[in-house]
């Protein structure tokens, strides 16, 4: 894109810029305070002191979608809540990532009926799926580390 053309000779600098940007994005990714159901309890306990998430940069959870980069969909999404979740996702500025935490967010979980959205990826694009009902804090941390690896492998042009 524009940056690589301008600094074409300094190929080394471009790559390092990408790595620096991705390191910054992965190092301080702020999740949105979006717990919906039982998985939110596990998300809270992951954020608490025993399984600390702030050592991964997620020191705080922002209450406003305008100030957050990560949407952890923790819990089952009902058909009534689905447009609200979509609106929250739309209000987040780029770059943004989504983790579908738990079985209900990944595939509808044990609730295969009229009221629950069968997998939140019907509504928003998901980067990492975490299985479990609810997933233990270690599994959520594994999911975030997987997301960090994905972020480090991204290109700047992905988000322009």
């Amino acid at each position, binding site marked *: 894109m524009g940056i690589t053309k301008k600094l074409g000779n300094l190929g080394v600098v471009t790559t390092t810029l990408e790595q620096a940007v991705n390191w910054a994005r992965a190092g301080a990714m702020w999740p949105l305070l979006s717990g919906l159901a039982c998985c939110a309890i596990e998300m809270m306990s992951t954020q608490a002191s025993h399984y600390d998430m702030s050592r991964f940069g997620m020191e705080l959870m922002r209450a406003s979608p305008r100030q957050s980069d990560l949407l952890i969909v923790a819990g089952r999404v009902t*058909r*009534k809540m689905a447009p609200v979740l979509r609106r929250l996702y739309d209000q987040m500025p780029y770059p943004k990532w989504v983790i579908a935490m738990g079985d209900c967010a990944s595939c*509808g979980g044990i609730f*295969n*009926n*009229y*009221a629950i959205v*069968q*997998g939140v*990826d*019907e*509504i*928003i*694009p998901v980067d990492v799926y975490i299985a479990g009902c609810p997933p233990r804090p270690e599994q959520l941390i594994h999911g975030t580390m997987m997301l960090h690896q994905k972020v480090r492998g991204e290109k700047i042009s992905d988000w322009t």
Partner: protein
Amino acid sequence: MSDVQNAVERIQAQFPDAIREVVEFRGETTLVVDKGSLVEICTFARDTEGLDFDRLSDQAGLDYWPEEPRFAVSYELYSLQNGTDLRIKVYTPGDDPELPTLSGVWPTANWMEREIWDMFGITFTGHPDLRRILLPHDWTGHPLRKDYPLGYEEVQFSFNVERIDDQKPYAKE
């Protein structure tokens, strides 16, 4: 005699023709009443000294399809002073089911009747604000009726996963 039996006898004495039957099962007493005098019986149960059923613990809708009368609503009353439970049950037929509202007698009945309307379609005449409470406001149908489809998605096994995957609406961005 116990408080519940006392209460039942007093209600029966006051409203002799409205009580259809009294059922006693494992310590729980149920009064099956006609819907015409439901509000009076409940007001009597709440206001009379000695009965004092001042709390409506729960209100539940029932669907007995395909038997007639199809719907029933059961009110669980509880007296905080005496510690007695009583259940009042009302039947209503399947086409155009309606019952008088109890939100004037106990205010908690307001939201519980909204839930029963939402899930079963039983209209409560005189209710101040009868609209959907659990489902989205533009939903059609009443899901907890026995003839409402489950609405489930086909389970994906290895032999049909590609077919289901193609038809599933995934969000692109």
